[in-house]
Structure formats: structure tokens, C-alpha cells
């Protein structure tokens, strides 16, 4: 299973990953449209990103969320009715929404952010 692994202790909070993510998927640099979230805490930074656990799959009323052959959890936008149940039921709060879009979005372990992370805090791994 492909999953993006984060080592928060290496993160310097530059936010490059968020801009890369939104650029790849929404063609604009806007951290509110990123599937990965970097947040400063009192000591360093938290990196919040989908673990591909798949809890959202069963909560979806239209079976729009599924796991592909590589083990990545994906959303079929055609089937999605935008109820956002998956957002409230995500155990790590890693499912996202933005007012510009009808459907939620999430990390699909494409690895682009990991490639551009200057500190090596992000790595695409096969579990």
C-alpha cells in the first residue's frame, strides 16, 4: 500500500508541500486547497495527511470512496453527492473540503510533495 509518511521532527514549516499539492490538483498555489496540512504547534510543526486507513470507505453513502490496486483510497467524484460524512468521520481529520468544490478531497499518495520537500520530512512509502 502506498502511503505518504511524515517525519514531523524534520519539518521546518516552509509549507512548500501545501503549495505543490494545490498546484498539482487544483492548478493554483493555495494552501487551503492542499490535502496535506502543516500547522505550527508550541514546539515545532504538525503534519496532517491521510494514512490511507480507509475508514471513510464504509461511511460513504454512495460507495464513491474506494481503494485502488495500489492500496490508495480514492474518491469517485461522479458518484459523490458531497455530503461530507467522510470528513466528520475521518479519524485523523485528513479529509478536506473547500468552498469552491462540491466534493471532498484527500491525499492520494502521488508523492509530488515528498519530491519537493527540502528537509526530507515527507516520504512516499510502500507499506
Amino acid at each position: 500500500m502506498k502511503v505518504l509518511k511524515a517525519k514531523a521532527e524534520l519539518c521546518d514549516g516552509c509549507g512548500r508541500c501545501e503549495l505543490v499539492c494545490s498546484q498539482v490538483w487544483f492548478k493554483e498555489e493555495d494552501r487551503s486547497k492542499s490535502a496535506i496540512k502543516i500547522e505550527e504547534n508550541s514546539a515545532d510543526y504538525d503534519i496532517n495527511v491521510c494514512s490511507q486507513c480507509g475508514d471513510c470507505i464504509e461511511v460513504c453513502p454512495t460507495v464513491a470512496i474506494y481503494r485502488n490496486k495500489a492500496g490508495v483510497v480514492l474518491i469517485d467524484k461522479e458518484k459523490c453527492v458531497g455530503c461530507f460524512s467522510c470528513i466528520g468521520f475521518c479519524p485523523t481529520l485528513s479529509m478536506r473540503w473547500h468552498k469552491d468544490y462540491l466534493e471532498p478531497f484527500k491525499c492520494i499518495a502521488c508523492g509530488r510533495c515528498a519530491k519537493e520537500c527540502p528537509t526530507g520530512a515527507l516520504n512516499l512509502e510502500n507499506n
Partner: protein
Amino acid sequence: MAADYSIEALKSAHKLISDMEYEVGHVNRGYTDRTLYINLTESKIAGKPVTDLMKDKFIGGRGFGLYLLWNGVNENTKWNDPENEIIISTGPIGGITQYPGSGKSLVVSLSPLTGIPIDSNVGGYFGPYLKFAGWDALEIQGKAQNDVIIYIDGDKGRVTIEEAPLEEIDTHLLAEQLTAMYADNEEDKRNVSVVSAGSGAEHTHIGLLNFSFYDVRRKEVRIKQAGRGGIGTVFRDKKIKALVVKYSGVKGDTNKPADRAKIAELGIKLHKEIHDLDDQQNRMRKTGTAYLTGIMNDYDLLPVNNFKFGAHPDAHKLSAKEFSKWFALSKSDGCWYGCTLACAKVVEGFELLSGPYKGQKVLVDGPEYETVAALGSNCGIFDSQYVLEANFYCDTYGLDTISFGNIVAFCMECFEAGILDSKKTGGLDLHFGNKEAALELLHQMGRGEGFGKVAGLGVRKLKKIFEEEYGADPGFLNDIGMENKGLEYSMYMPKESLAQQGGYALTNKGPQHDEAWLIFMDMVNNQIPTFEDKAEALFYFPIFRTWFGLMGLCKLPWNDIVPADNATKPEAHKIPEHQQNYVELFSAVTGRQVGIEALVDLSAPVYHFQRVFNIRMGQGGRQSDAAPMRSLGPATVEEYLSREERYDKQLKEILGINPEGKTAAEKLQLIRKYRQDQYNTLCDNVYRRRGWTENAVPKLETLEKYGIDFPEVVEVVKKYL
């Protein structure tokens, strides 16, 4: 049972009676601004505009239903007259997918049980799909000559009335046939919703309507029920076999709200609350409303043996734990998209032990708490398998489980009291606890035969029949017959809660707890001790709860899940955070900016209008709020003795009467009079607070205050003022 036809054969036997093509258009801020009118006598199909007055004073849902019905009938209309209508409408919020419980349909008609307007709310996809197909409401008048299906194609913009001679009548077969018929393929089935009744609805006055939704995981048609008041009976009287709507492509903004982001914020917050707290609170996702059985039994509030008693040692056999053994849980059992409270429970592969489908394995939707108590404990039957069997048959026959359970229980008590015997029941041994007899009675209603056909008329008409034909004492029948206005009581024992006695009998449509459920506030928590407190609660809650039915909302996500810090808030019993969500949702959908006062101000016009409607139909005055003695206190010596300590204490401490040396019958009379007096005083207080006369007629100033002093409304009340 009909022959086994293929879907193609069923479809090719359809005969087009009438059709209308229309521009589907799209919703704007929760409204399509038009309703669909169908007259089956004239085979007429037409669109009607939604006026500003309708939106301003009647909002939608139940409000639209009552408004359209008012204009469709007159003061002499009976339930089976052609001009009686069935109106289905969601409401402006109905159809949003983000906030749990936002897909309800409200059904309004003149009830065969009460003769006055009934409103019944139901899940399933029909109401939202109807709106997305271009119509804020569906209004059906007239009667067809032969069985028809009304099909609303929201993809193509076409409405048809089709004679449909071959399909089954019973819902579990019919809904499946029609879902397959009108869907292009398996994937398309989720875009179809069917409304249907059943064979029992034809032969009784307690017919209900099943509203379907397609379960994409189980690949099964699921149903929810508009149960109360016999609307399914009206449906079959009009020779409607089914209504079908199709709408493809529901998205997160199909309801076209003014502020979608706000709705998303509110919805996600509640999803998360349910995710975090439901397991610690009511476990709705695990057991649905069946969790209530144990609680009610613990507090002596579970109806047992026709409401004689409030608890039973065998009640654990009907507990949530017991039903959990049957339930096949999925993590997405909502009856509309985005309802993560997901109370719609399922039993899969249930093998039927009786009736026309004996031996078949079926899916049972439910049971809800009300069904468990009505079919089970209230009939002295503590058997979960029986409850599931009777639940399935009530649904597929199109019969209301609450009324059915009351009828069986009433007949059982009359049987044990000697009013009925095996000869009169055609051989049915109707002792409390006899599940075989209860099931046979149910199947007789399905077939329209025997004592079942008589019993299906409902408790009020049975009282008359037992008095006139069997010489039974009308006083006894009125004491124990658990109906008010002709509608059978829902399943909370109100005997020891004065506020709940009013919560039931001071309702507009009859004793259904969706108007006011005050039993815990009053009896358990003692939060409303004085008459003024109770009157305030009976002013506020029935009006506030009207809100759900106007909007297309389910009540459960209001107080069957509460925020973690709710108990620290002022007026915590109102769940203030959730109430705030509702007014923000309304503003976000419609663009009408309102504050918390809207919960009363927008609901009150419809509430008072409905009371005037009752009066227009020759009921609705104080007399129609009379409650059976058994709902007010002990009706019989047996009941007195079952709670002797409690009642003796009341005699001593409240009435200053020493119970010692008095017979139980003497003590019973004293308590009865006291309870009746208390109830009358409650009525006086409630009417005053609601702005009604002492005869329960809304005063002119009340009508003016809420802007419903229309000439035809004033005309109705002025002769009583």
C-alpha cells in the same frame, strides 16, 4: 398472490392515461417555486405556482400540505371523497446532503381515522427527488378508475399517469419491481424512489405509505414509513398503486442554497459530533431508536398490555441488546444522503414463519422503538422474532405498526374482559401474549377478511361497534381505548406525567409524540413542576417541533445526539447549539436572515392554522382534546393495585385523604377524579398560553399576531368567539 411476471411484461401492460412534458429547471434557494397538481378523476396534470404568501407563512413541507389541502377540500369533505387530497412535500432545507437528517418528506391528507388533517413525516428519497425533478410539492386529488402509477421523470421532464394492472400490491415486491422498471441499470437504481402502500391499506383505515431508497451496498430496495393516520388507505382508495420519481445526478448543491459553505461547516461539525459522541450517548448508529425500550421499562413508561402497566420482567427480551443480535449493521444506514446518525436498521435474510410469504427470506427495515413497543410489550408479547415478523408484514401490507399494536392490545383487553369471545373474533383467542392470534389478525387485514377487517377500522370505531353490537359498557371502552381524535396513541406511557398527557391529547393531529415529548422533562427530571411551566412547555415545544416538518428535517439529530458541553448551556434541554444550527441552515439555504426566534415565529402560523383547520372540519374544540382515562391515570382497580403505594401516597399527601379502610374501588374513584381535574386545569392553562379560547379556538388576536387572519380562516373561528 399475483402471477410472476417479468418486468417487461409488467411494463408492456401499462396503459398511458395522461402525460405532461415540462421544463425541469432547477431549484433556487431551496424552492422550485411550483407544485405539481394531479387530478385522477379528470386525468389532469398541471403545474401551479408557489406564491410568496405560501413561502412566507407556510414555509414548505407540512405547511404546504396543509395550505393546499385547505384549498382543495371543504368543511364537508370526508376522507374517501374524491376532493380529499394527498400532498407530499419536503421543505426548503430538504435535499441538502451535508447536514444529517435533511431528507424528510411530509405527507398530508384528511385521515380516515380522525376526519381531520393528518401529517406524517418519512425518510427515503422521494421528497428531495421530487423537488429536484422540479416540484416543491405533489398534490393528488380525485380517484382513478383502475389502479395507476404516477411517474415523474425528473431527467426528461415528463409526468405520466399510467394504468398498471399487473404489478403486486404489497410493497416489498412492488417497490422492487418498479425500481427495476424505471432504472436503466443497476447503477441507476439509486436515482429512483417509489411510494407505495400494500394490500392491508386497502382493507383497513390504518394504511401507511412506504417511501423507498435504494441501498447501493446491499443492492436492495429499502423503505421508510409515513405511518400515522391512514394515508395509505386514502392512497389505495384513489386507486394509486404507486408513485415513482426519478432524478439522476444529485450533487452537493442541487438544492442551490444561498450559502453552501455555511451548510458545509454546520454539517461537518455535526458529522464529527456524531462520530465522537454517538457511541457514548444513544448509540443510534448501532441500535437505532430501539435503545429506548430498556430505558422506558426502567422508568415504568413502557406500554404493557394496552397501556395498563409501564414495565414487565420480560422486557429485556425486546431490548436493544436483543435486537442487536438480528441487525446487520453497515456504517452508512441513513435514509437520506449524509445522515450519519444512521438509525435505519436492517435485518437481512429474515425467514418468514407465517402468511403468504411464509418460508421466504426477506429484508426487514427496522424495527423502531415505537414498533417494538406497539407490536411487542403493549400486546404482552415479548418475542423479538415475532416483532420482526409483524414489522415486516405491517410494512409490506402498508399498515401502521403503532395503530395496529394499539388495536390488537385493545381487542385483547376486550377479549379478557369478556366483551369479545372466540365466536365474535372468528376463532381468534385474543389473550394478551398470544402472538399466533395477533399474526393471524394481521394477515386477515392483509386479506380483508374476518375479524381483521373489522379491527382495521381503528380503536375509535371499534369502541362504537362493541357498544352497539355487543352491548359493551361505553364508559369502560372510553377509559381503556387508547385513542384521541380517532388516532391511536404512540408508545410512551403518559399516566404519571401530566405534561405528556397534554403532549398527546392537546395535539392537532392526534396523540403522536412528534408534537411534544415531555415525559422525561416532567416526570423524570421534574423540570416543569407548575401548571404555568407545563403550559409554557406545551406552548413552546409543539410549535418549535413544527419547524422540522416545515423544513424537510428529521427531529432525531436535534436531540438524539448532543454536543459534549450541552449540559453547561442555559436551557440545555432545548439543545441550544443545534437549534442555532437550524436557524443558520434556514438562512444559508433560503437567504432569509433569521434569528433564534424564528423557531417559533415561522412555525406558529402553521400550528395555529392546523388547529383552525380541525375546527373547520367540525372538530378541534375542547371536546376533541379529551383524553382516555388510561392516559391520565389508573382506569381500573387492577391498575390502581399495580401502583397502589404510589396512588395511596398521592391520596394522602396531595388530597389529604387517608386511604386506610377504603376499598381499592373507592380509592380508584378518588384518584380518577383528581387526575381528570388536573388535566382540565392543564387544558385551561395551555389554551391561555397558546392564545386560544377556553374552548381551544385560536383567538382573533392570535391569528393576527401570526399573520394568518385570512378571511376564510377568520370565518371559521368567528362563530366560536
